[in-house]
């Protein structure tokens, strides 16, 4: 595994070198970066232990290599101190553009202050912007994803012929305010469709706790017709709990997750999970590089939400009908 990674990094390096000659032309068309200097992009990643961020890093690396630029990766390892230290170090090392998917969005302040002082544009990838003056943020439409989940759940519950209008919602840890938009979007839409969210409990983003919480929900409200989980580890864990209680996570209690992690796709194929909401981390990574280039060249950026400088990356609902076409 390790060797494979080294080889791929080496290949990327060669690609970057090969692409160099082309990029000098494109670079001259832009105004800000001098033609003789290769652009270096710093990317500070939330946590490389997670597949989602591995894909995001891959998408970013590929897009950077395609432009003939260089990339420096930093792993925040799910730690706000490491995030501030490492991202500041990238700026110290002279990167021309900083892309960051922040472990704690509210800790972006000192990083952006430093970047501003050195005139380095900052593009935030996902999670949140923490109310700081970043140049742009690429974000999955979390609330929109929650709504998609609610729409699907409503349809599926009706198809199942259940008469209960009670559903449950499992949230991430209390501090994940941006992921909470998923549950908020879900709640708003499902209540508009005449359902009642009878339990809203936190599984702290962990599979183990998601399983236990679902068991407790089943005890307290045996008649729930659906459950929405803030991420897939908890979603699949909840589905396992439902299955262990002798019910079907698709036809008895409609279980929906979020992220389209491989385990969720596997579960959907095996009728263990009804649906999940797919984000496309690789596309998000590529989008940050495009936006970064625009910021470097002082070109205007097309925002989905100009007030917050947000660029939405669309989310899609994945269920049994389209699971084979995904990842």
């Amino acid at each position, binding site marked *: 595994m*390790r060797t494979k*990674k080294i080889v791929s990094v080496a290949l990327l390096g060669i690609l970057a070198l090969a692409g160099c000659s082309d990029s000098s032309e494109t670079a001259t068309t832009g105004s800000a970066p001098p033609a003789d200097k290769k652009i270096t992009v710093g990317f500070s990643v939330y*946590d*490389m*232990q997670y597949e989602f961020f591995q894909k995001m890093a891959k998408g970013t690396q590929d897009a950077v290599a395609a432009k003939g630029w260089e990339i420096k*990766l*930093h*792993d925040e*390892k799910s*730690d*706000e*101190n490491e*995030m*501030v*230290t*490492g991202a*500041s*170090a990238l700026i*110290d*090392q002279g990167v021309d553009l900083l892309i960051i998917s922040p472990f*704690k969005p*509210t*800790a972006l*302040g*000192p990083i*952006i*202050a*430093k970047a501003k002082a050195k005139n380095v544009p900052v593009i935030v990838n996902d999670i949140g912007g*923490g*109310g*700081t*003056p970043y140049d742009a943020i690429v974000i999955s439409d979390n609330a929109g994803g929650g709504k998609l989940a609610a729409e699907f759940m409503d349809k599926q519950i009706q198809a199942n012929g259940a008469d209960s209008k009670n559903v449950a919602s499992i949230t991430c*840890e*209390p*501090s994940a*305010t941006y992921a909470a938009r998923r549950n908020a979007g879900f709640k708003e839409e499902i209540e508009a469709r005449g359902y009642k969210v009878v339990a809203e409990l936190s599984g702290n983003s962990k599979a183990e706790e998601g399983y236990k919480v679902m068991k407790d929900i089943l005890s307290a409200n045996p008649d729930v017709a659906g459950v929405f989980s803030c991420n897939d580890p908890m979603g699949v864990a909840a589905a396992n709990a439902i299955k262990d209680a002798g019910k079907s996570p698709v036809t008895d209690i409609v279980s929906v997750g979020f992220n389209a992690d491989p385990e969720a796709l596997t579960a959907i194929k095996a009728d263990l999970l009804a649906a999940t909401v797919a984000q496309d981390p690789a596309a998000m990574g590529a989008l940050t590089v495009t936006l970064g280039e625009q910021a470097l060249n002082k070109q205007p950026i097309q925002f989905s939400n100009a007030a917050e400088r947000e660029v939405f990356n669309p989310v899609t609902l994945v269920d049994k009908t389209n699971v084979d076409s995904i990842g």
Partner: protein
Amino acid sequence: MSTQTMTEKPSEKAVTGRSSKVSLGRLWDTWGVTALLVLLLLCTPAIAPGFLEIENLQSVLRESAYVGIVAVGMTFAIASGAFDLSVGGQLALTSVVTLMAFNGGGTAAAVAAAITTGLLCGLVNAGLITRLRVPPFVATLGSLFVFRGIAYLLTQDGPQTLPYEHVDSPFAKIGSLNVAGLPVPFLIMVAVFAAGWVLMRRTAIGRRTLAYGSSPSAARFCGISDTRIRLFVFVLVGLTVGIAALTYITRVWTADGSAQDGFELKVIAAVVLGGTALKGGKGTLIGTFSAVFLVSVLNEVLVSQGVESAYQRIVLGCVLIVALTIDGLRTRFASPGSFRRALRPTS
């Protein structure tokens, strides 16, 4: 650990941790980790050329300050024969309260809030231990949950933050300013270490803490009060957390209940790696100081080499074992007092 203390009441020599006899083992106790750190620093530029950049060095000094500051308090706690497992909870709670105070009343209020909250946390622990007679390990394990829980309650609607418009406030500058090229958090850390050293080596309460740690019952017979030692040690830990929170929060600008999960293990590991015995009775602040930087420089080297975080963990764990093994083997085979120690009456 001097062997005379075991069978006799603690003598002045033993209590101050100094002895006329110079042995390799004794040197290792105080300077071993420092030697390792120097060795690592000598090798580092060859492995990671960027390491010597001024900004990088400043970053290393700045990022470890909060660990180092709490490690001073923890050195006293461990030297007295007790842990404080609640420092992570204390740091989270103090940081949250400090930011609330800053957003309500500015820099002065924030500083006052940090120190007060830290002291209060320490008092709570001391109260549990001395009044309710709960063993320190359990008392602080319990208060870890409680402090974190309160921090979670205070941040139910989202983390507390330092708003970006205050980027130039004196408060935010605590974390980012350099004085004569040295980061302010590092200077604060050095001051805390210096104060700690004076406290441990030059004051009665410091010596009594060591004496108490080396043998609580002997110390009791010499008239040292348990209550006072416990109160001193745990309030001191709280105070250091308060100071550390100031350097921490002005660097990361945000706090909630989950801030610095596992902080207690980080701090205790640094103290023990530095050469302070978990059994109590021996404390070396110089060792603690070096250990804090040993860990952060090593981390820095691993990161600069592009080592994945999974492998970083493995290396750091192995270093911990190797460093402590040297110490363990030395006390096991080289100390002539092992037999006499066996006769030591346990309290």
